[in-house]
């Protein structure tokens, strides 16, 4: 089996780093909203001991700007394009999805249902997915937050609402204070926590959702090497996305892919076949591949 390696939304700009984008099996855009957004005031990022915080606030050119200025250039990279879609209401999600629906260059739509740095939509995740589903026939991935008492329940709800796949997980809210002032290091206060510290949390979410629904899963959260990718696949992911890791290592896609292949090879032929979901033993239903 081959495991597609993607970037995590918001963690790569394919237009300024096309070589990096071309090293991926699919490129995921930063989240696009109906209207342009300047995003949150700086400072927007802070490193923590075992991860990082960000509060970018969905800076993006809006769906019209995206379609006019970005998508044509992205298409020329010849990498499948996933567009991450965000908004502040079901109507927002529907609007962006319907604008993307007729674009042949868009392979997949990922619904960012879980950004910790902006106001949440009043609707439930399932309602947002249903609105998007009504607006496009594109393949729809629902991106869920780990900040919920029962992520498997959320997974079932978005599956029922028409999601074709899951992206797990987004960041979880975190805070860090400046050593001198004891005020938050990020202008907006809390930020989304990502990186190695998030890894066991992400793995638990993938594990729970893979057991609950029969959908392909893009696993992400703190991946740093092939072993981490292997863990996500064993827990039930069908593809793996790299986020924070890309900031320290733009060459990570090739490296993680090679390390993952080596891990699988080391375990032998028979193993590769049953790799996805291996952590579940015989208890998991094995869904079809992600692509």
């Amino acid at each position, binding site marked *: 089996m081959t495991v597609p390696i993607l970037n995590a939304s918001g963690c790569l700009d394919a237009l300024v780093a096309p070589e990096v984008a071309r090293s991926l099996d699919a490129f995921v855009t930063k989240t696009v909203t109906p209207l342009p957004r300047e995003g949150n005031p*700086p400072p927007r990022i802070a490193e923590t001991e075992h991860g990082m915080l960000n509060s970018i606030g969905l800076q993006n050119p809006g769906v019209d700007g995206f379609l006019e200025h970005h998508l044509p250039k992205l298409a020329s990279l010849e990498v499948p394009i996933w567009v991450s879609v965000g908004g502040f209401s079901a109507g927002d999600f529907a609007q962006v999805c319907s604008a993307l629906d007729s674009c042949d260059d868009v392979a997949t739509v990922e619904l960012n249902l879980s950004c910790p740095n902006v106001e949440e939509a009043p609707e439930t995740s399932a309602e947002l997915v249903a609105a998007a589903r009504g607006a496009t026939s594109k393949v729809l991935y629902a991106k869920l937050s780990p900040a919920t008492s029962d992520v498997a329940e959320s997974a079932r709800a978005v599956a029922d609402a028409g999601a074709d796949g899951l992206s797990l997980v987004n960041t979880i809210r975190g805070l860090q204070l400046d050593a001198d002032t004891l005020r938050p290091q990020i202008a907006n206060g809390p930020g989304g926590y990502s990186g190695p510290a998030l890894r066991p949390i992400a793995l638990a979410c993938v594990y729970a959702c893979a057991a609950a629904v029969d959908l392909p899963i893009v696993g992400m959260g703190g991946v740093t090497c092939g072993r981490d990718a292997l863990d996500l696949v064993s827990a039930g992911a069908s593809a793996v996305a790299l986020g924070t890791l890309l900031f320290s290592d733009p060459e990570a896609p090739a490296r993680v892919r090679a390390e993952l292949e080596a891990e699988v090879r080391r375990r032998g032929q028979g193993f590769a076949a049953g790799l996805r979901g291996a952590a579940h033993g015989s208890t998991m239903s094995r869904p079809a591949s992600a692509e």
Partner: protein
Amino acid sequence: MPGSGLVLGRARRERLQVGESETVGPYTLLRLERGSLDPGIPGQFFMLEAPGRVLPRPMSLCQAPPGELAFLIEPVGPGTRALCALEERDAIHVLGPLGNGFDLDVERPLLVAGGIGIAPMPYLSDALGSPPAILGFRSERHAEAAVLLTDAEVVVEPRLVTELLPEDPGDVLACGPEPMLEAIRALVPRTQLAWEAPMACGYGACYGCVVEVDGHYERLCIAGPVLREAA
């Protein structure tokens, strides 16, 4: 190939060995073997792996002796402390050169730097044929770093670099703390100022490093770090 690929245009990423480090006043001059990296244009920067930390740290190139890249580092937090603690034959990943450096096509350059803002000046001074320079430091000990530039005028707090600016300063190329850069911008018509912002990636991937430019948030790592202003 991990650790040796070509990425991001002229920038490359490579694992470089540490040579002999020196202390210069309170700073450390970290010498790395150059590998196949291009030193780039003065004012450009590199992302240096900070051992034990999640994110790399942006550092301006300070000197480019043959076969080497040298960085002047002030230990202000965990990442810079880890970099200053590197020992000979350790190795770290380095990505660069990144960002936009100084435009060297200037008629009457004057270099101005405050504190660790001196870091890019030795390489810049070499490229411009040792133009005049004004350096400001917050203590005599910090001012020891002035040895890195020949013939610079040096002030120590409470005196400020702006006190030494000539009436017609020509083209000011400056690097230093934000208040210093703001003061220079207010006084001097033609400037090239090297700004700072916390950076996670250094190559436009994270949108973490934005600064306001003409009412919009621009990523400093790709729009800067050197921003030109002509009044």
